[in-house]
């Protein structure tokens, strides 16, 4: 291929979604949120299951945790993010994302910092129990603490 070819291509959304009829955006969002409410209990159950598994496998209580792949922790944190909408405003999904950050950093640097993992797991548990009742600034302080831990670890490597 030599040079770049620019072309107009068919966009069915532009053809069908725009124009007469359809539903108002505000109404569509409302209906979608209502549809999501149907999944809220299932989402919370998944979050609780994953949290329990993370604590069981990667918490300080498991003497064999060093032998586990952190990919498992990444996958479990990802499932909490997927279901995070079930606990809106708890900060839980941001914390789970911080876990993914930490695992990614560990992979990239080929290290594993159990102190940092312990802090993240403890924060997940705090946010699950009390995240929705904390103020935004309290949640932010907790999450900022996690990103500082990760940043510090990154700087130390």
């Amino acid at each position, binding site marked *: 291929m030599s040079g770049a070819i620019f072309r*107009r291509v068919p966009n069915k959304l*532009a053809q069908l*979604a725009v124009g007469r009829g359809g539903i108002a955006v505000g109404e*569509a969002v409302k209906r*979608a949120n209502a*549809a*999501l409410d149907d999944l809220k209990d299932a989402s919370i159950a998944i979050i609780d299951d994953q949290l329990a598994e993370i604590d069981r496998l990667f918490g300080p209580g498991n003497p064999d945790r060093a032998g586990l792949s952190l990919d498992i922790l990444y996958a479990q944190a990802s499932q909490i993010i997927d279901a995070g909408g079930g606990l809106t405003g708890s900060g839980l999904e941001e914390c789970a994302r911080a876990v993914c950050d930490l695992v990614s950093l560990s992979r990239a640097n080929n290290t594993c910092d159990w102190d940092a993992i312990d802090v993240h797991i403890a924060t997940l548990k705090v946010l699950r129990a009390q995240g929705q009742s904390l103020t935004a600034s309290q949640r932010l302080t907790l999450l900022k603490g996690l990103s500082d831990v990760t940043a510090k670890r990154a700087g130390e490597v």
Partner: protein
Amino acid sequence: MATLRRMLDGDKLKLDGINFLLVDDNPHALQIMAQVVSGFGVRNMTKVDGAAAARQELLRGGIDIVLTDAQMPGENGYKLTEWIRREAPEPTRYVPIVIVTGHTPESDVTLGRDIGANFTIAKPLLPRVLLQRLFWISYEDRQFVQAEGYVGPDRRFKRLGPPADTEGRRCDDLTGDLGAASQPNLSQSEIDALMKPAKVAL
């Protein structure tokens, strides 16, 4: 270049005639995606649990938009996007693609943009965020670019990066090898700043 305006509650979209392909290996996440788009009035959706099944559906034809998870075992959402843009038959290769991801380091968002995804959305999937992107896709008039190093919607952004197969000269130029993510997650507004087309001086 298109101006992407924020949708208003009174704006209308008619999605009941659009065929959605939803891809996620996590059954609950797939169900969330399906619930959200059905709330938008979508009647035609195909749900699959991985890239291989997605490719089969795409080869069958008739898909108008793809929403795919980024992190999937085996072939991930980025590989699927790359396949659609470079190997899928026409007109499937032009289909709009929205990548949905739980982990949003800048390197991943940039990768999604540079392999031809239209938008990247951070999980958990929020209806208003997804609908805004569908709104933009419906109203955008970006041209489609086919070049040696890039196939996808025109992505003229503030920083284009080095040409394909070169290392670049700046310390922050990305190479083709993504490697493991080692940067913090981006917020949705930071993702948008990377993904939205913007006017540039050429």
